[in-house]
Every structure is written in C-alpha cells, then in structure tokens.
C-alpha cells in the first residue's frame, strides 16, 4: 500500500488552514476595535470542517466524468460571516474586544492542537518508513 499524504494527515491539515485563516480574521477584528462602522467578522469553523470532511468521504457531488460540472467551492473558501453584536457602540462598531480576545486565545490553542496532531501523524509515518 502506497503512502498517501492526503489520507495520512486526515482532516487536521484542513483544520490547520481554517484555524490559521480564523486567526487572521480575529486579529483584524481586534485591530479595528476603535474603527467607526467596522463590523466584526468570523468564520464558522464547524461548517468549514464539515465541508472539508464531506468532500473526503464522498457525500458531496463527485465528478466521475470529464464533462461533469464541478460542484461546490474548494474546502477553504468558506464565507465570512458577521458577528451578532451583543452591545453595539454609538459609532456603529460591533467589535467586542473581550469576546474577540477570548476567541483568539482559544483559536490559538486549537491551532497548536492541530499542529500537535499533525506532528503525531508525521511521527507515525516516519516510524513506519524506518520500520524499527
């Protein structure tokens, strides 16, 4: 059986990319905490990951012939959503720095968790290659 990197790394590769992107979006929210009319954005991580995983297990439309029209966007191009403000400010800014900071910290931890999983996968591959 050939070693297939896509199969070996599982969903963690996609998760890492989504979390990296989410870190950027949350950092932009925090950067614009004082910008008038700025609206906080966020990604729906679960939906994006379900989309990525769905493509892998074949529950989405699959092109089996060259003439088939490809369905759906690539796994990473999820839509950015707007955060529902709990307490919008007078200048129309919907960034709540505390919420964003908490989400950013949590996303950083999740990112490091994904990295740790990937590292474990690589370690497994390496020990399989060495055969020790």
């Amino acid at each position, binding site marked *: 059986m050939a070693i297939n990197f896509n199969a070996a790394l599982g969903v963690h590769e996609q998760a890492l990319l989504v979390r*990296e*992107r989410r*870190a*950027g*979006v949350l*950092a*932009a929210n*925090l*950067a*614009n*905490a*004082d*910008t*008038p009319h*700025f609206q906080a*954005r966020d990604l729906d991580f679960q939906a994006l990951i379900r989309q990525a995983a769905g493509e892998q297990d074949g529950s989405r439309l699959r092109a089996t012939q060259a003439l088939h029209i490809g369905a759906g966007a690539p796994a*990473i*191009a999820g839509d*950015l959503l707007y955060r529902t403000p709990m307490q919008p400010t007078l200048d129309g800014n919907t960034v709540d*720095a505390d919420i964003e*900071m908490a989400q*950013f*910290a949590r996303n*950083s931890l999740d*990112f*490091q968790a994904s*990295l740790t999983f*990937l*590292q474990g996968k*690589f370690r497994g591959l390496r020990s399989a290659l060495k055969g020790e």
Partner: protein
Amino acid sequence: MSINAIFDVAGSAMSAQSIRLNTVASNLANAQTASSSIGQTFRARHPVFAPLYQDQLGAGGTAQGDAQAGVQVLGIVESDAPLQPRYEPHHPLADEQGYVYYPNVNVVEEMADMISASRSFQINVQVVEAAKTLAQRVLALGQ
C-alpha cells in the same frame, strides 16, 4: 501565509493607536495654551480611523486577503466644540475687551481616550505575541 498577515494587521493597528496617543498628548499639553484671538487658539485634534483592506496593502487581493483589515488613519480633524473665552484683563495676551481664549480641550475626555488607546495598543501587542508563538510552532513542525 496568513500568519504573516497578522503582523501587518496588528502593526497597522499599533501605529494608528500610537498616532491617537500622540494627539492626546498634544491636546493635553496644549490644554492651557491661551491666545488673544479665536483664530489662533489651539483646537483639540483627533485622528479618524478607517479599515484598510489587505488588497489595498498590496498583498494581493485574494479571496482570503480581502477579509483581513488593518487600520489606517484617514486624517486628523480639529474639534468644533466652542472655545473657552475667559475674562482676564491682566493677561498679556488679552484683547481689547479683556478676554483671552483657551482651547476646547476636554481634559476628562482626553484622559479616557488615552486609556482606551493604550488598552487597544496592548491588545495588539498580545496578538502579535500570539501570532509569533504560532509561527514558531509551525516552523518547528516535523522536527
């Protein structure tokens, strides 16, 4: 790689907040600068922030990039609040009626603005530190 973009975004925010701190400092420094006419009197100055999208930064307007907005300072506006004329006939700058004009700097507002700016600056420093940790972890992947 969007972790590198975080540095740009947080850096633009820190730069904008430091401009805000600078205007607060000059407003507070000149809060008691009197003058003899309305036209010459110092007026409180405030920066105007606006989002700066990544494609404007020149990092390529990709679908991922357009989400990440830094901060730019569109300009500095002077406050329209009325000046404070005070009757001080012995002041060397007093006009014929004995009035001198003091700036329209609201010291309480400026102090609150200063605290808000420094807190926002700190938040962005934390973001940069977190992004640095993440980037180092990515670099160490596979070792």
